[in-house]
């Protein structure tokens, strides 16, 4: 058991004296400190002649109490006096947390800040998109500055290494669409339309949309985290000073990779989701695998493929843009990298879905319904 510091009250030469006993260390001061804080009464003198070892926390407690009581400290040995002096010199009443305003002020302030930030954020992101396009055009004028190695590397990261997970996801989604669709269509004997449902939905909507969500989660986040970390370690600044444009070296390869890979992945995803549908149809609906695939050619109009393929690069652009933009906005500490990465993924998925809705209306209006 620890030996706790304690005190007793004595009357010495007509003066109320608080005699402290035991070691005055951080590990033994807990009780004494609380007792002295609750102390009601008055002492003139604090006697330290019977204490054991002292550290700064013990010295602080004694000093604090002596200030409160306006009491004199006697009997301190050399070490104790030295610590008392050091602690006295280090007294401060500064706040430990930055000042916070009242809740009634903070709420409107925060809301206002978000609105303003949203405005500036949208403006900056548009500016960033413009910057990407200008840099992209500059590459046509100076094709030698095109970083083919970096682009190919990003092709691999965004496209090739995503093949397995996107393939698996699409296959399973195909199964779900076909199986659930068939369950409903069977009710009026139209299960043959499962093929139309699976085919058109996969090619036109889900293939590209699910791929976009997966790419946003895989690559959009890694864009933001990579660029954000590079910003923190001043790699981006180092590039600028050497005369390498971070836009050309870091952002463009990623955006190009996302734009180019999205249609390929989207098409691949649509294909695998049809195969998934055909697979479950052959198992549960007695529609042979080959018949399913042959029917797809008849029931899916070619413009459905176009709809999917037109949307895909736009989604890729959005993902690359938000990922790189958020990454380049990182400043300060490592926490920001996490926040910006989250923001990049959330924004990318949100914007992709909003745009998808616009596309759906648009293509129907132009007669590609």
């Amino acid at each position, binding site marked *: *058991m*620890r030996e*706790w510091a*304690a005190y007793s009250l004595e009357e010495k030469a007509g003066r109320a004296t608080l005699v402290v006993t035991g070691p005055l*260390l*951080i*590990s033994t*001061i*807990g*009780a004494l*400190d*609380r*007792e002295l*804080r*609750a*102390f009601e009464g008055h002492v003139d003198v604090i006697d330290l002649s019977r204490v054991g070892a002292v*550290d*700064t*926390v013990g010295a*602080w*407690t004694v000093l*604090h109490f002596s200030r409160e009581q306006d009491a004199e400290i006697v009997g301190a040995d050399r*070490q104790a006096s*030295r*610590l008392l002096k*050091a*602690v006295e*010199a*280090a*007294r*401060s*009443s*500064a*706040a*430990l*947390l*930055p*000042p916070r305003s009242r809740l009634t002020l903070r709420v409107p302030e925060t809301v206002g800040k978000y609105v303003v930030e949203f405005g500036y954020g949208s403006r900056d992101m548009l500016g960033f998109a413009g910057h990407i396009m200008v840099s992209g055009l500059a590459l046509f004028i100076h094709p030698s500055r095109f970083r083919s190695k970096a682009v190919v590397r990003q092709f691999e990261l965004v496209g090739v290494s995503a093949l397995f997970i996107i393939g698996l996801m699409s296959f399973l989604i195909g199964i779900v669409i076909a199986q659930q669709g068939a369950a409903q269509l069977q009710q009026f004997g139209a299960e043959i339309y499962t093929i139309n449902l699976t085919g058109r939905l996969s090619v036109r909507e889900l293939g590209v949309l699910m791929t976009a969500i997966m790419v946003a989660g895989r690559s959009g986040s890694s864009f933001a985290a990579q660029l954000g970390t590079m910003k923190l370690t001043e790699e981006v600044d180092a590039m600028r000073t050497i005369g390498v444009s971070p836009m050309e070296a870091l952002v463009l390869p990623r955006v190009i990779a996302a734009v180019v890979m999205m249609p390929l992945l989207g098409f691949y995803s649509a294909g695998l989701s049809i195969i998934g549908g055909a697979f479950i149809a052959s198992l549960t609906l007695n529609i042979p695998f080959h018949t399913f695939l042959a029917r797809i050619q008849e029931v899916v109009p070619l413009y459905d493929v176009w709809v999917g393929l037109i949307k895909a690069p736009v989604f890729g652009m959005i993902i690359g843009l938000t990922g790189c933009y958020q990454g380049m906005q990182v400043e*300060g*500490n*490592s*926490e920001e990298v996490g926040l910006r990465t989250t923001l990049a993924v959330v924004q990318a998925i949100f914007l992709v879905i909003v745009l998808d809705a616009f596309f759906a209306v648009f293509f129907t209006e132009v007669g590609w319904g």
Partner: protein
Amino acid sequence: MSEAPIQEKVEAQAIDNLEPDFDGEFPIVIEGLRNSFGEQVVHEGLDLKVKRGEVLGVVGGSGSGKSVLMRSIIGLQVPDQGTIEVFGRNIADESAREDMAIRSRWGVLFQGGALFSTLTVGENVEVPLKQFYPELDPELMHEIARYKVVLSGLPADAASKYPAELSGGMKKRAGLARALALDPELLFLDEPTAGLDPIGAARFDELTRNLADTLGLTVFLITHDLDTLYAICDRVAVIADKKVIAVGTIPELLKSDHPWIQEYFNGPRGRAVQARPEHGKSMDSQGQTGE
């Protein structure tokens, strides 16, 4: 006085068995230490004793394993062989609870400060207090955090700042404030003056020496800085050839004929420091310009 309830409450909150007694002369004793990473052997048969109350400077070339040695002592790196006794206990085979006891008696300043970036400086100092001494009154913890911040040479209002708002030198001081939070007996400093300007480095040296004297600390100080060695170290340990090749005061080391030691102290930089009239234990080292 309502002494008993407070005492009971405090005892109930306290972590028991926290304070092992140690009165020996050598808080750190390392024998036959061997560390390796894969094929690469960093330490082989390394022995070192750190005396109570001294400031021991540890020098060695880049990659000679100074930081690895410190990490071994504080238990972040498990050695292949050898024993490391801190406060008379072998830190490799103690139960977690006794580890806590040792941990409460040392403070570590990492190279970059290693402050928790989501907490203010003051909150950073409070983290070890809350961890080891939950029985302390929250108000006392705040007060401790405040004076430790000032004690470490930071302005008082730095306590409410986040690490990202501090300069490199201030981060080190904030790291020192956290290392000192528990009033440790043993302080580990990993290149405390690296990356500081000469004036800031000299001030930091002075602060370290003052604190070591005032608080009676034993300091294990890894450094590259010759000025630091001359200004504040009682003894210097030289790591080369995977072991400690020499320990002693600087005059003693100067007599050694080991090529690395000769090169180190008598190279152009070493001679420049030696040539200064006020080298040695000068406390008014503010006037010194390093390197």
